[in-house]
């Protein structure tokens, strides 16, 4: 049993690099590392206590063969042992409580100045806003957050509708997004990488498909990404993409989605200005490729039943053009 457990624990962490690690045991953020240490401590203490209890039980059962009536001093001795066991329990839980308290302090401490990112939970995707004192440099994206390695990031968590929960286990514990409140989560990635998270509070039909990706880059890559997100267009468009843009603006797409630099300014759905550069679409549902974009646009309800994107009837030419356009928005 134990080798199996070890195997199950280790193996996925090796393989999950491709899709982003989502495991509390695969800690890459400061908070997650503290928490993993605490969890290991708890695990060993609790295992020891449980083994002690079970071994006592087994011995008590087997001892029945040598049964003799208990005496007065046996009763007194047992009372002392039981009282001692209760005292030991009290000691253990006091130690564990104090350890928890110190860990709580450690994960809530911020080293220096922190970058602020606003995360608003919607049913069933994440609206990300990078605020900036210069309003022209502010932008919105969806479902994917980029952060610089080694720097504190403060996530301001709000909700547009119901309670969600922001959880990227490899970086930090979770925090709920509660309507009517603004909660904060502090994260700091220690290593570059892609970290996957998921909504961890039941929020309706597609709670299962509400993933978030945090991409931790070194400072230079992060600055480059930030710059590319702040401008409206990065790639030149060929004829097919231009035709796709026309379709996009003529159809209901523009009523719900924003593509900065065009007349599309809908705010109901995610901002699509740089959708092609995101790793996944549909909040972690499928990898972003032209084909998957086409599949999503053609019938979002089969891929993610119950989500709020309606099926818009398009001809096959229109679909081809729009998917080229979307893929082009890098």
């Amino acid at each position: 049993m134990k080798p199996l457990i070890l195997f199950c624990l280790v193996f996925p962490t090796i393989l999950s690099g491709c899709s982003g690690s989502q495991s509390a045991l695969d800690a890459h953020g400061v908070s997650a590392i503290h928490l993993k240490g605490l969890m290991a401590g708890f695990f060993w203490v609790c295992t020891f206590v449980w083994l002690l209890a079970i071994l006592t039980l087994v011995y008590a059962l087997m001892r029945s063969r040598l049964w003799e009536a208990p005496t007065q001093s046996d009763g007194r001795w047992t009372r002392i042992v039981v009282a001692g066991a209760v005292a030991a329990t009290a000691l253990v839980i006091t130690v564990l409580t104090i350890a928890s308290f110190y860990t709580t302090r450690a994960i809530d401490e911020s080293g220096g100045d922190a970058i602020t990112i606003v995360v608003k939970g919607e049913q069933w995707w994440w609206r990300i806003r990078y605020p900036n004192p210069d309003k022209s440099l502010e932008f919105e994206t969806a479902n994917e957050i980029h952060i610089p390695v080694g720097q504190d990031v403060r996530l301001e968590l709000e909700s547009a509708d119901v309670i969600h929960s922001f959880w990227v286990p490899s970086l930090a514990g979770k925090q709920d997004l509660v309507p009517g409140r603004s909660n904060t989560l502090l994260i700091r990635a220690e290593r570059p990488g892609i970290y996957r998270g998921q909504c961890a509070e039941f929020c309706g039909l597609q709670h299962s498909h509400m993933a978030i990706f945090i991409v931790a880059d070194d400072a230079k890559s992060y600055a480059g990404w930030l710059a590319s997100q702040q401008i409206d267009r990065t790639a030149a468009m060929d004829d097919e993409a231009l035709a796709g843009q026309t379709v996009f603006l003529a159809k209901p797409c523009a009523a719900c989605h924003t593509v900065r630099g065009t007349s599309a300014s809908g705010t109901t759905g995610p901002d699509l200005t740089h959708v092609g550069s995101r790793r996944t679409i549909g909040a972690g549902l499928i990898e972003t490729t032209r084909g998957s974009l086409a599949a999503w646009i053609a019938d979002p309800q089969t891929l993610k039943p119950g989500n709020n994107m309606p099926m818009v009837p398009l001809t096959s030419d229109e679909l081809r053009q729009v998917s080229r356009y979307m893929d082009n928005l890098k």
Partner: protein
Amino acid sequence: MTAIAPDRDTRDSHLAEVELQRHLSTTWGSASGVWGALSNVDHKVIGRRYIVTAFVFLALGGALSLAMRLQLSQPEARFIGPDRYNQIFTMHGTNMMFLFAVPVMEAMAVYLVPLMVGTRNIAFPRLNAFSYWMFLAGGILLWVAFAIDTGPDVGWFAYVPLAGPQYGTGKRADIWAQMITFTEISALAVSLELVVTIFKQRAPGMSLNRIPLFVWSMLVTSFLVILAMPAIMIASTSLILDRLVGTHFFNPAEGGDVLLWQHLFWFFGHPEVYIIFLPAVGMVSTIVATFTQRPVFGYLAMVMALITTGVLAFGLWVHHMFVAGLPRLGESFFTASSMAIALPAGLQIFCWLATIWWGRPIFKTPFLFVLGFIFTFVIGGMTGVMVASVPFDTQVHDTYFVVAHFHYVLVGGALFPLLGAIYYWFPKFTGRMMSERLGKWVFGLIVVGFNLTFFPMHILGLQGMPRRIYTYQPEMLWGGLNMFISLSVLILTAGFLLFFIDVVRSAFHGRPAGANPWRASTLEWATPSPPPCYNFQRVPVVSDSVPLWSDGEVLSVASGLRVDRRELLVTGVVDASPEARESSPGHSVWPFWTALATTIVLIWSIFTPWAVVWGAIPVAIALTGWFWPKGTPEDES
């Protein structure tokens, strides 16, 4: 007042045994047929009904869990869609918590407590009947709603705003909220009866320090119910008001608070799990005592542990809200209190270990289930200490780690003792023994199946799998463990099927049992199996806490109760000295009519608030009928 003949010949003091039985059977017997069933107020009949109904709900809830495991066995499986899956897991949790776990514990108490304290019937027998019909109505409401695709789909905890007026579409959440009202009325009624029975109807000589530990645990549980259930009734009523009438209890824009729901719900929700666990603790104490043939070590410690657990249970609820954004210092207080409750629980475990150490264990099925309980519940307790810690919880809250934890403590801590208790008390309920051979198979399959099913969930939770998801991506690499779990649940199912088969078979073909096949010490074993309708021919008198072990074959009795009308003995709270003879109501069909009228009000009020006004009329009529004096001999009292 006319001169009446002295009533000496109608008392039980001077009657011979056969004549006494004849009188008592006539006085305490119930009618047959449908009318008899609807009007029965015998606690044993009602208790049995309750137990059978609760186990039917257990089977239905188990079927739901099989559906969930089928859907989760593979990544991106398409067996069940998101809407149906949301209904299924909501139904599974709601059914197990409200329709199985609490009612079955109440049911065992309804049957056993009057027998254990040596009285003829539970206090307020008609209220007892009423509570069963309310429970049944609530269960039917919920399951019929599920059958017609209107089952609640917001989780068993129904957080607002998902369950609120804007995002909870349709009547699903209202049906959930109203079902709560049914089951809470039922639980409150039973708890009131138990408190009064335990305090005022004990056998003479059964002072507070001689009460069986199971009765103590039911007493503490009943107080927990009385203090915790109103919180959930307020919460569910506020939810219905928000949804139906447009109040703003949970609307932040108008001064309400989303977290208010969580506080109200969990203020009930945490004591709820102790309402389920404490009766099981009482069952374990009883079984350990009988199967080591000695009283449980440390009676006073055990009672104090029960009371401490009950009191502490009200100070833990915020541990369900550690990630909601409350101030960290306040949350840390709840870490301390949540860990502190490990102390009374640990004390109880140590006392049982001491009992087993100094006793002579008899390895029959009930005792095997107690061993399974210790093995499993302590694991659950350990993971409980883990999730009690705020930082630990920020990683495992709302993941499969928590699912594993609460199944370990609820199944290991409550269901295993319950199964052991069924094997233990089945001879008393039916007069037949269950099969020892099948019992060992049941034990093995269930304990092994349970651990194989739920232990891997700890790992899944740490690997990032959240709760309440209907599917997961293939690249998450959870598929292997999920498939393993889904296959292991078949072992668990086989164990349960075997259990039901054993129960049904033994009810018809089991080996006949005598009055005390286990050589136990408590009073219910002093009467034939199954007990006659009047429980005891004469009221027993006890002189210590293990009456059947110290008095041997002959038990002292008190006589002087009338046999021509239903009468029982009321005694003092502390030392159970006889105080008065009290008449006990006979059968009445009015509890059924009242339950029917209340059901109509409650279901109607899901659709319009005017139901409360107009529906009050049939309820008033039914209650008037209930309390109207009927000229029976019991009314003369």
